[in-house]
């Protein structure tokens, strides 16, 4: 049967080209792989190879013709025994079955859930003191007992008992098959962890700090976060990436970055940042059970702090549920992680001045409990966000943008975002204090939005 040869698209963006030169003539026998013509695009001159075999029947577009649109018939090939007179009417060009003419305005984004103000544990629950470190250790031990596909890998997590002793005792409890010391190869071991997750296990990857996770960030984003989507729902990465994030004490610029805003931006990841020991335990258990890749941002300074932990069997905290740590009517202060330290200190001091702040501990950055924030702003009409990370593109800037768009009429003042300063972290003690966000700055911001 005679087949038409169409002008090919030789690059993803090519729409037309020049048929520069024919390398065959009518009557020639064509074999697979023979060059039919040279085609010039704006980028290069490319050779057009024959796929089908046959005889060149008729050349429709002359050599040198410019502006030949992609899919225009340029020649007709014949099978053995046919002649040029057998050329049939052109076959209809195949078009996609459904071609959307415009950007999908009708495909709506999923609607966010409403605010959940229920307490994390029932009233009257017995409490005990525990450090954040102990809480994280308990969470991992409980989950590793519950599910033997869960394992921990990272530098110094096994024999050293953890660089920050978070995994203390886990090697003795679970053995070296499940608590694994890695060589110093974040890029490689993170890739291995993703492969293990694809293969049906549930890895917990400990980064000594998230500064070193930058070596591995390609696997976190491209191999873990995006794969469920790219595979149409077939293959995901059920895993947790955890470790110390943000500033410690005078460890300098390369060891002090706060990655909350970076990871929070990526669809496919879940991002949580606990403050208290209860947050840490409840969220880590949820993270380990979550079938998605979770970024679990801890803080070295908080590891040793003691908080009250509820004595509840199998204690978990769901993602996307903020906690109102302190109720108030005058201003909403939103924070997360170590930022809560400044937020709560500021709230105490402000109370002495008669300003009652409502302090929200987000705990979950993605998904973020925006309904709770909005409900609070509707009540207080003012908002200040607090974080240690850098200002340009901060978590607070997203919150401010959402409040502006969804609760503009409720605002009596602009939202102020208190952040770390726009500088690499300095070493000198006095400069470091200044580089981080301070309680005084939060107080000043609140006074500004309350016009006091």
């Amino acid at each position, binding site marked *: 049967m005679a087949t038409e040869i169409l002008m090919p698209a030789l690059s993803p963006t090519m729409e037309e080209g020049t048929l520069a030169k024919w390398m065959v003539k009518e009557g020639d026998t064509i074999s697979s792989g023979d*060059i039919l013509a040279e085609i010039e695009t704006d980028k290069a001159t490319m050779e057009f190879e024959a796929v089908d075999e046959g005889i060149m029947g008729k050349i429709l577009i002359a050599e040198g013709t410019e502006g030949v649109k*992609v899919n225009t018939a340029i020649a007709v090939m014949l099978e053995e025994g046919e002649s040029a007179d057998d050329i049939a009417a052109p076959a209809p060009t195949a078009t996609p079955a459904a071609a959307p003419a415009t950007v*999908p305005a009708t495909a709506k984004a999923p609607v966010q859930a409403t605010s959940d103000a229920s307490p994390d544990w029932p009233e009257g629950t017995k409490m005990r003191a525990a450090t954040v470190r102990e809480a994280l250790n308990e969470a991992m031990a409980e989950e590793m007992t519950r599910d033997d596909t869960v394992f921990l890998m990272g530098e110094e997590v096994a024999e050293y008992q953890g660089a920050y002793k978070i995994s203390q005792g886990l090697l003795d409890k679970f053995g070296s098959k499940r608590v694994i010391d890695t060589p110093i190869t974040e890029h490689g071991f993170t890739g291995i962890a993703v*492969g*293990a997750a694809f*293969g049906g296990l549930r890895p917990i990857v400990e980064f000594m700090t998230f500064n070193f996770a930058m070596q591995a960030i390609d696997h976190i984003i*491209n191999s873990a976060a995006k794969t469920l989507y790219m595979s149409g729902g077939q*293959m995901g990465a*059920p895993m947790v990436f955890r470790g110390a994030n943000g500033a410690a004490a005078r460890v300098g610029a390369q060891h002090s970055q706060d990655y909350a805003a970076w990871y929070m931006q990526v669809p496919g990841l879940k991002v949580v940042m606990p403050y208290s020991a209860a947050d840490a335990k409840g969220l880590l258990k949820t993270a380990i059970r979550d079938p998605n890749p979770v970024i679990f941002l801890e803080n070295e300074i908080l590891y040793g702090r003691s908080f009250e932990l509820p004595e509840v069997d199998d204690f978990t905290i769901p993602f996307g549920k903020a906690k109102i740590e302190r109720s108030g009517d005058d201003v909403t202060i939103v924070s997360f992680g170590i930022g809560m330290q400044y937020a709560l200190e500021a709230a105490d001091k402000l109370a002495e001045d008669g300003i009652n702040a409502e302090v929200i501990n987000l705990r979950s950055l993605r998904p973020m409990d925006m309904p709770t924030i909005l409900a609070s702003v509707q009540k207080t009409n003012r908002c200040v966000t607090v974080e240690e990370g850098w200002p340009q593109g901060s978590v607070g800037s997203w919150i401010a943008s959402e409040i502006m768009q969804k609760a503009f009429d409720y605002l009596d003042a602009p939202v102020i975002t208190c952040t770390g300063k726009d500088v690499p972290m300095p070493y000198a003690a006095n400069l470091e204090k200044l580089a981080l966000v301070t309680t005084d700055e939060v107080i000043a911001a609140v006074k500004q939005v309350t016009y006091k």
Partner: protein
Amino acid sequence: MATKKAPAKAKSNVSAEELLGHYREMLLIRRFEEKAGQLYGMGLIGGFCHLYIGQEAVVVGLEAATKEGDKRVTSYRDHGHMLACGMDPKGVMAELTGREGGYSAGKGGSMHMFSAEKHFYGGHGIVAAQVPIGAGLAFSDKYKGNDNVTFAYFGDGAANQGQVYEAYNMAELWDLPVIFVIENNQYAMGTSMKRSTKSPSLWERGAAYGIPGEAVDGMDVLKVKEAGEKAVAHCRAGKGPYILEVNTYRYRGHSMSDPAKYRTREEVQKMREERDPIEAVRQMLLTGKHATEDDLKAIDKDIKATVNESAEFAKQSPEPALEELWTDIYAPEVPQETV
């Protein structure tokens, strides 16, 4: 087309049936890729499209050494690997055209297809990312205590990536059952081996980590199979990883938008005429009287029909519904089989 070399005799331990099977599988890949190239030229396939034409013997030979449960992972030049492990040509072609009938429901494209059922773990767009992922798949099988192995395929270009060596180190350290397959087609996009390293023996780089390996003639499907069997035996015995540097060649450019000015037409033609892997098996079948011209013509016809069917399916399958923009971002439960 007559070959310029005398056709090799089939080894006595290969059956005619097996040889015919190799012929059929390689031909399916060859015709499928040619069709994909055509559809790309017609604008039905967009973005990136990297064809496997010329390299067919590599994946077909190695797949012949596998058993059920074994895993495979590769780069973006993945259509051949998918067909060779038994994925449906219709599902692959429809993913190339971005339709809902595609393996990734139209949301992945050429470089991002997966099949939990056939233990095919992608399709990866970041050069060499698949190498530690492959080691991780092997890790999961060792953890579970079975004797599955993983084939982690990558190219000569990927072989210069740091994470490959990180994966080598840990694979050997932990005795992971992974076969690192370097498909050396001599060019990393437009950069020849000579221009990218002074250390061209890629399989020998494993020695620094204690990993054994060898070089293989990738245009000879039986040699590839033999090397694959050796590697598989090593891994299944719990001896750790193995490296196969399989020397092969791609007839087309790196991708559909590559004018391939970095090599001569003569070099490509010479390979096609003297070393074509499919032609070699064809000659073996005819000379050894394991099949007649008519038998082979029948196979050709059958393959053409399969490929045309997949192209038709790929053209008819509708684009994904608009709501699909917002789905599959988060899993409500673990998506892949955990067995």
